[in-house]
């Protein structure tokens, strides 16, 4: 059996919802989501292995499910909300996780970083107050060759603290009238 006999190479159009935007793209049925995203110019999603081992390609499906986009076909992503690192924050407006990775020196070459950030985001959605061991276990599908992980764990813990505080502040803010309604300046 040869490759061409097993492969459907006809192009079809997929409609992807990425970071709140709709992207329409011509793909083959076997085109991987990672490549579809990258071909659409979202180059923050990286590819580092052939075996779903490294996690450089992790994106979020529907807000809180991390997925290795090298292990998923683009066509399978239709109907899902996809978040990539570009949807997390921008250089002037970093997400608390991005800020924490910066503060704690949680990256060196930066190749694993987008996938790390997305996995860490998913973890904090599910567990806002993790132990170090829980962080390590949740991140175990994301390899990093440079940092040795110690600072990544610290970064995730810093972000968890900041995000908990923010969540609490928001909850408290909900209990008093907003400033627009005449609250204290």
């Amino acid at each position: 059996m040869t490759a061409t006999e097993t492969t459907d190479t006809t192009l079809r159009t997929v409609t992807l919802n990425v970071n709140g935007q709709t992207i329409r793209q011509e793909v083959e049925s076997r085109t991987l989501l990672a490549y579809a995203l990258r071909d659409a110019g979202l180059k923050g999603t990286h590819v580092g292995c052939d075996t779903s081992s490294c996690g450089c390609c992790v994106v979020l499906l529907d807000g809180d499910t991390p997925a290795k986009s090298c292990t998923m076909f683009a066509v399978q992503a239709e109907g899902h909300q996809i978040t990539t690192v570009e949807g997390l924050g921008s250089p002037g407006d970093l997400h608390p996780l991005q800020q924490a990775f910066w503060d704690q020196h949680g990256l060196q070459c930066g190749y694993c970083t987008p996938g790390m950030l997305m996995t860490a985001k998913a973890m904090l959605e599910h567990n806002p107050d993790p132990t170090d061991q829980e962080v390590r276990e949740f991140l175990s599908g994301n390899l990093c060759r440079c940092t040795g992980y110690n600072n990544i764990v610290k970064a995730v813990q810093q972000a968890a603290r900041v995000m908990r505080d923010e969540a609490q502040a928001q909850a408290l803010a909900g209990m008093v009238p907003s400033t627009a309604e005449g609250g204290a300046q």
Partner: protein
Amino acid sequence: MSIETDATNNAGPQTLTMGKGMKRKEDPRFLTGNGNYVDDMRLPGMLYMAIVHSPYPHANIKSIDKEAALAVPGVKAVITGEDLVAASLAWLPTFHGFDKQMVLAVGKVLFQHQEVAAVFAETREAARDAAELVDVDYEPLDPVISPFDSMKDEVILRDDREDRTNHIYHWDSGDRDGTQAALDDSEVVVTERIYAPRCHPAPLEPCGCVAQFDAMGRLHFWVTSQAPHVYRTAISLVTGIPEDKIRVISPDIGGGFGNKVPVYPGYVCAIVGALILKTPVKWIETRTENLTTTGFARDYHMDVTIGAKKDGTVTALKVKTVADHGAFDAAADPSKYPAGMFGVVTGSYQFPVAFAELDAYFTNKAPGGVAYRCSFRVTEASYAIERGMDILAQKLTMDPAELRRKNFVRKDQFPYDSALGFTYDSGDYEGTMDKALNQIGYAELRREQAEKRARGEYMGIGISTFTEVVGAGPSKHFDILGIKMFDSAEIRIHPTGTGIIRTGTKSQGQGHETTWAQIVAEELGLDPQNLLVEEGDTDTAPYGLGTYASRSTPVAGAALALAARRVREKARKVAAHLLEAAPEDIEWVEHRFQVMGVPSRSVTMKEVAFAAYTNPGEGNEPGLEASLYYDPPNMTFPHGAYIAVVDVDAETGEVKVRRFLAIDDCGTVINPMIVEGQVHGGLTEGFAIAFMQEIPYDEQGNNMAPNFMEYLIPTSVEAPVWETGSTVTPSPHHPIGAKGVGESPNVGSPAAFVNAVMDALAPLGVTHIDMPLTREKVWRAIRNAEAAAASD
């Protein structure tokens, strides 16, 4: 209206950051997906290349049929070794200069996964489909997998070479007869065969390139390279394209660790494809290609012999090594040092006499032998001596720390000439070890160990007090492809006191954009945030040998400091003009120019910069820039003392790393946060080498770890929590006293781990187990030791 004054306007020492943990300037780019890696390049009309690899480690190629591949929709061309012969591009010189390497196999294949053909197509998928359809008819031959078989010369692997032997070279250093005589006279002699297994740097970004010829015939080549200038020269030498018609660009690089130093066949094929198809070509290797065909590391079989007196004073060291270089001698060592800096194998100790020799052989394995996060074979050398010292301590029933203390080069002996010809610049080995012993609570740990031993539990404490040699290198000794291993710096200060810094090095995650700015900021009294660092583009960067072997800070870092001092000298004249004084009367105090002894009359560098363009003063050259090439007078010798504490489960063979402390001395520290990050990363790779990472081959020559499912690298779960610390012994010959650190933890830590496990198993009489210390290997060693004890 009030104008906010810029804090840097009067930059004094308090606003500078040298020696401080300034956050990295490059990070916002990487954190937001705005990194710019080679695979991010997209050019109109760009084709994708895929490579056909040999399934056999050794086989004649009887024929290659391209028909089916060419019939795949979107496929533009298929090239083979024969096609390259016609274009005189079939062979590639290796950096070593002693050998050449096939670009695509001609006549026969010499290792499994060797490149046999290249396919160019409109999509990456079509290229891979077509690569599978290239029909190669092989006639398998018996492979030679072990260098010990290879040395018998029963099967000659390289019939392109006239010498009819698998032996590549012999290298030796030191006093052969004197060493033997000293060993014959020694009261105690220990000897052990120690294997540093074949492993792979495996950066997370695979290797790759994009080749484009513009309408003027100029080659633009984006590539994952640690040494872009050397690539440009190599491409020119291989292809005959004049060097000025080649631009090599290394953009952001996702880790290198030595893997991105050599020039690989895929790069040549991509350039050929772009040339013949007149359109850009991208090749990004797969992880399997990375692990099976590009620069592996180590593969040294070392017979280590140490002689000593009964009191532990060492008398002689002999090391005989057999090195497996695979199918081509593509080792990335400077050409006058075929065994790299293996000569540092005497380590931190005063060996009165020593002799090291090495013989390298071809086998049917992937070629290479790169410096994997180390300075050309230093990891092997360090591992050999640090293991050897522990084996000696065990034999003498002496505490390994005391044995080391007895034999250290003392701090008043520097510069120290080692028995194998290196001149160590500076160090304080005993001070560093003492700091480590105190910080980890060594005496207490030994007490705990004694208690555990009494209960039949296996706890181990492993020490490694290593000396590294980095900063290749002094031009009298070091070159690659004949090019001397200097490095360079160029600094331009703009009128408003910001600037741009360029060097011949290339960061792959080491943080050059930050540390280079810090060095120059310190020398010039400017704000590091406003000093842009640019590397990796051969059109703009000054020629330099690149970043590997921890040479960036020792060589380019020195070039930067000296170039900045040139800028300062130029600026002094302008300052003199502004202050209406003679240049000799201007001193540089607290990061500003002042009239000698008159603190009230001073100007900042920022003010001087503006004047350099607007009012330089009569006779002063306008502008404010300098460039400089730096040839280091010597290598630098960072050192460290590492201690690992492990528990071994005798039932399962499982090793738990309970603690690991690394005290590093890399001379002057530029950015402690970055240094600590480098240490963490290096220790994690050292841990991996000790316990997990290996590229083994079976007897048929199959690569048994061609992906991340088989080639195990640590995840966050396995990686230990690291404790670190430092001592500072500046290098006397480096302008700012810095020595380099990125590799020390990887060089120093494997021995600490293995020593710890062996220390744990010492009661069983186990002296040595070769890395990686997998559970199974440890378990077997324990069972064998028990069986041996039972049969006594």
